[in-house]
């Protein structure tokens, strides 16, 4: 009881992230883990507890969160823009490397085809083999290798910075969204919502924003690279690109964008959940 009391007063004075907030997120996750374990281990023992159970099933939570995203598209859009731009930059940088490799390969293959054609006009079938063998051959001299590594490092730095900035952007947008909805949160608590439910609702919401935003970012990033190389080298380069690793880049982009959105939403979600209901209801925006 003592600790709850402490949390309350602290949240009243300073409703920002605190130690018991992190505990809350852990609790929100643990609740479901425990429930799963109970289901797996036979729910017979849970029977006397059921009467005092309060819960918010995932499908319902998902439905509520999705609805609030759709109804506040403007706010969600601001949060998503950060993710879209960050992930677009990320995919651009990563797929740029894949594309330039593809272009290199194409050029090498072309040179070898020409050489082979000069050597023997009757053996055009050698071309595809030469293409596959190309990466094994020493491609560039040492000097260009080192500038390439430097460029990679600089790009990685840029990517990390841009992701950080967009993470902060999401936190900010989610904080605004929480502040706007203090009354709603207070009402939900009056209706019997646990703090963990509020955290869950906000986290689901940000995951939805994260997935949609990263999907859009991936499409934009790839589109830009395609356009750049298509105009510079002609659209035939797309045939030489390693589509397998490009798909991997897309997946990485999706995962990074979503995780970023999720992490950035944790502090606002905690802030929302820790409001004592009376204070949440009193607040007016």
């Amino acid at each position, binding site marked *: *009881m003592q600790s*709850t009391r402490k949390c309350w007063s602290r949240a009243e004075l300073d409703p920002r992230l605190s130690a018991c907030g992190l505990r809350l997120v852990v609790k929100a996750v643990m609740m479901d883990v425990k429930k799963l374990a109970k289901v797996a281990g036979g729910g017979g023992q849970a029977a006397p507890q059921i009467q005092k159970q*309060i819960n918010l099933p995932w499908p319902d939570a998902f439905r509520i969160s999705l609805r609030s995203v759709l109804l506040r598209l403007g706010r969600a859009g601001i949060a998503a823009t950060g993710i879209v731009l960050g992930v677009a930059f990320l995919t651009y940088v990563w797929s740029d490397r894949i594309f330039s490799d593809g272009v290199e390969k194409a050029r090498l293959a072309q040179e070898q085809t020409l050489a082979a054609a000069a050597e023997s006009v009757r053996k055009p079938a050698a071309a595809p083999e030469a293409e596959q063998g190309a990466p094994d051959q020493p491609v560039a001299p040492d000097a260009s290798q080192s500038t390439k590594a430097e460029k990679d490092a600089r790009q990685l730095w840029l990517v990390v910075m841009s992701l950080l900035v967009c993470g902060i952007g999401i936190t900010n947008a989610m904080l605004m969204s929480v502040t706007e909805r203090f009354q709603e949160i207070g009402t*939900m*608590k*009056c*209706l*019997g919502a646990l703090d963990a439910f509020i955290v869950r609702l906000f986290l689901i919401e940000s995951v939805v924003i994260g997935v949609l935003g990263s999907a859009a970012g991936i499409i934009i990033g790839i589109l830009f690279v395609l356009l750049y190389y298509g105009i510079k080298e002609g659209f035939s380069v797309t045939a030489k690109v390693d589509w397998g690793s490009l798909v991997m880049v897309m997946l990485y982009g999706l995962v990074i964008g979503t995780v970023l959105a999720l992490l950035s939403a944790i502090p606002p979600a905690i802030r929302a959940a820790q409001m004592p209901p*009376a204070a949440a209801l009193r607040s007016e925006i």
Partner: protein
Amino acid sequence: MAKYVCPSCGEKIETTGIVTVCPKCNADMAGVMEQSARALRQKAAELIKDDSVTTHEYIVRTRGLKRSYIMGEEEVQALRGIDLDVRRGEYLSIMGPSGSGKSTLFNLIGGLDKPTAGSCYINETDMAQLSAHELAWQRCRTIGYIFQTFNLIPVMTALENVTLPMIFAGMGSDEMLERGRMLLDLVGLGGRLNHKPQELSGGQQQRVAVARSLANSPAIVLADEPTGNLDLQTGKEIIELLKELNVESGVTIISATHDLKMIDVSDRIVHIRDGQVERIEKREEIDLEIGTMGGQP
């Protein structure tokens, strides 16, 4: 043993159970049954309110309830020790000028806030001793809330607003929808199940809020200025609705208000001033003439 008379053939039936059709002429007895049940309920309600007959069961008891806020450097005492007993099935109004501590008391009784000193018992459990989980359970199942600003969830339809507490309580989805429809029907919004709060008038929104407060059949409904944002006529309708629920289903209603229309339906009125109970009046003792409103008889 209860006696019923068949409405069509006049046959007298004596039974301890329920009679749905008359054994002699097969006439429908549902109306008669309902009537007698209502009469019984009313009689019980009267008996409960009769001090000479019953020893009362108190659903809410507060002892030395104090709450102070820290405003800057100063400590402001919102409540200075409130002792209050509320009987089961009572319609209680808490009255007082603004700033007298009505809302603070309301929040403490409802478990929305914690007292600095003293204790508040609901159904003999001390609200301050409950864990967060138990407190949420209490808010979900035992207490229904109605607010001055309605506080419906704007992204949800009327029906979803009413069924939200039932989701928390873990009710099955079919049962939930059925009960939600029934409750909205009860408050006279049967035809507006799928309207969003913005599409409803103030009075209608408050009706949805009333339906929502009853979602999990609470023992107490707490209403914080339920008529504060409504015009006279709609306010009167909401008050009548609350009174009807109080009489029909025996739910205890505690309402913080400074609406004089409330006096007419309240069993007791608690006057609060400067964070203390000034006086408690019984309805029979008040001789207050309330005029007609808005030109309505």
